[in-house]
């Protein structure tokens, strides 16, 4: 566990309590079955904004609390545990882009509306099904952006897009006439959309420097890792509890050494995952030069660990784990989507190697 300030500890505990009481997995199931157009729980999002979470990365001058990534991570982790469906992670990634690269006018125009929860914001980077920040062909001429972005998280409802074009990041308002969206239904029942920008009015984020895109996608990856950490933790805990109650051969499953050792291995991996993920948040908050390495370490380990734990959750629950009525499938499906988002384990190991001169 990272050393949290008193304020951060309070925030984390509050998020945990809220997720357990107000947003258990049954809430996600309800959202999935109702399938609203925005594909998230609007009430939960409102409540989160009221608690100030949408403004965690937003400077105080623009109505936020500016608590940084360790705090954001602590909250997203709690939401991951119960699979809470809200656009907090996507919005935070877009917020980071504006904070890092926006002009004062751009900050003033968007950040207060983000902090209040009025605007859902998101990043639109990829133009294919795999993470490829080096393959951007969307382009801007005369202030008009054109290009197609695939699998944009919360793309169904976003009021603001931070779009990667060949020459930098741009802000595009969701209600611009040049923006059209088509829902893409993935296994995780969350919002992903294809967004077509056809001459949409675009304003460049001018202050961020040449590596702004990388800085921003690293922050998006870190936010994803937080959710993955919470999911892995919850999937593990539920499996552990189940093994202690299910009786076969006259004994609880937890008494079989073959299963004990598997749980022990997962527990060990989870400890490594937590250190790697929290390490990335700390690097970001300290603005250290090794943010890219730290994020790649976190995302690679998070991907592998959550993959393992989500597979084992289904396997160790037996037939029950295969049913839609049980929650195991939700963790399995969401896990693969988050694993794929912002670079999978292979992608990040490859980058880690490159950065280290291997």
């Amino acid at each position, binding site marked *: 566990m990272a050393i949290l300030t008193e304020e951060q500890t309070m925030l984390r505990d509050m998020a945990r309590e809220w997720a357990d009481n107000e947003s258990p997995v049954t809430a996600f199931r309800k959202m999935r079955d109702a399938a609203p157009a925005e594909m998230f729980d609007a009430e939960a999002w409102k409540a989160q904004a009221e608690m100030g979470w949408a403004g965690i990365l937003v400077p105080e001058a623009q109505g936020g609390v500016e608590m940084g990534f360790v705090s954001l991570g602590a909250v997203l982790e709690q939401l991951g545990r119960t699979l809470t469906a809200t656009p907090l992670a996507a919005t935070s990634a877009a917020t980071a882009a504006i904070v890092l690269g926006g002009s004062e006018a751009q900050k003033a125009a968007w950040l207060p509306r983000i902090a209040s929860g009025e605007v859902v914001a998101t990043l639109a980077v*990829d133009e*294919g*099904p*795999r*993470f490829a920040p080096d393959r951007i062909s969307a382009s801007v001429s005369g202030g008009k952006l054109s290009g197609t972005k*695939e*699998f944009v998280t919360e793309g169904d409802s976003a009021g603001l897009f931070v779009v990667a074009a060949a020459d930098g990041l741009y802000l595009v308002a969701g209600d611009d006439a040049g923006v059209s969206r*088509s*829902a*893409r*239904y*993935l*296994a*995780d*029942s969350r919002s*992903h959309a*294809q967004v077509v920008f056809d001459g949409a009015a675009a304003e460049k984020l001018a202050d961020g420097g040449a590596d702004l895109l990388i800085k921003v996608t690293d922050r998006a990856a870190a936010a994803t890792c937080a959710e993955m950490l919470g999911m892995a933790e919850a999937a593990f805990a539920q499996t552990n509890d189940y093994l202690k109650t299910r*009786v*076969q*051969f*006259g004994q609880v499953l937890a*008494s*079989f*050494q*073959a*299963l004990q050792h598997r749980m022990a291995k997962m527990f060990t991996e989870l400890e490594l995952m937590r250190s790697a993920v929290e390490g990335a948040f700390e690097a970001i908050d300290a603005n250290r030069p090794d943010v890219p390495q730290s994020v790649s370490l976190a995302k690679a380990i998070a991907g592998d660990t959550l*993959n393992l734990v989500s*597979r084992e959750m*289904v*396997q160790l629950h*037996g*037939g029950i*784990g*295969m*049913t*839609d*009525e049980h929650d*195991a*499938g939700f963790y*399995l*499906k969401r896990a*693969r*989507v988050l694993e*794929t*988002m912002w670079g*999978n384990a*292979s*992608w990040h*190991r*490859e980058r880690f190697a490159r950065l280290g001169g291997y």
Partner: protein
Amino acid sequence: MATAPEIDAPADPLEAFRSEAREWLAANFDPDLRGKDNSMSAVEGPNDDTPEQAAWKNAIGAKGWSVPTWPKEYGGGGLSRAEARVLQEEMAKVGAWNPMGGSMGVMMFGPTLLEYGTEEQKQEHIPPIVRGELRWCQGYSEPGAGSDLASLQCFAEDHGDHYVVNGQKTWTSGGQWADKCFMLVRTDKSKKHEGITFLLCDMTSPGVEVKPIQLISGSSPFCETFFTDVKVPKGNRVGAEGQGWTIGKRLLQHERNSLGGGGSSASRLFAGAPLSALAKKYVGVDAEGRIADGELRSKIIKHEMDMRAFALTLRRVQLDAKSNSGPSAATSIMKNVGARIMQERSELLIEIRGMAGLGWEGEGFDEDALKDTRHWLFGKAVSIYGGSSEIQNNVIAKRILGMLDHQ
């Protein structure tokens, strides 16, 4: 090599059979049906056959080649193992598939009944299985009896010429589409294994009720099945009262054998485009024309090599098996390896396609990708049903390696 026995050298009678098979296929298999089988039909229920599919099903059923090695007297093909292999090769050449291959009747119940059934039972039940006229389901698992199957509680009470069955089964695959059920019931509460009896129950009997359960893959291939005062004639008992555990275990061996790749359902799940071509399409190639992502490339290579080793092992096991000895101890090994490889393949398909490999429904995905998402999820069951991987490992440790029970 010159002095080695030429196991694979074609003997003349086999070549004669090869031409017979070839001619018959040319006359009966419509090449337009190539690749038109539904590999999930065994679990997703009957889909409406087109007239061409129905004609093919009738033809192969009448010939008995849906079960080539079963005896002719019950409608089977009466072929030797060598002939059956030739038939399989010839079918593969023209892309022909076996419409009955994945059914529980063919994979599990038929072989067991041939071994333990009375003459009357075989005459009654085997021919409809061969022709694919009746669907069977497996009434084994109960809410409290999964891996520990012998703790089952569903009870059959002796009423002279019939039994009266009360209890619940669960995870009954295809229960909602099945005509008949082979089931394990308890006839004696005082003994664990020796109190179990093997019965055949008509699913249309009064008192049988099925409730479909939805799976994480979105389909509803299995059911909770409830039995309330269901009458089962004594003539529907296979083997003696109390002998059900022996027969039931034998059937499980057949099930595991077919799941491990010995049967056609597993080999069909392995079919599909080579992963390397798909990876090149989605990931691109480097300057030397190799898959651009080095780690993905090694994963794919490892998988392809595992698959080859698996296929070679399958062949070795088949050659080793003395004719008619049925599934052997290798069954558990093959089931576990088969399950692992199948699941790794599905995970790789997702990794290769990225977000496009996780499509659920609607626009923006190609049909193969959508199918592969569902297969990925359904495939998680392969290491659970038919005796989970953990249970197979216990079998290997105890029965093959002579290791001891937890004291």
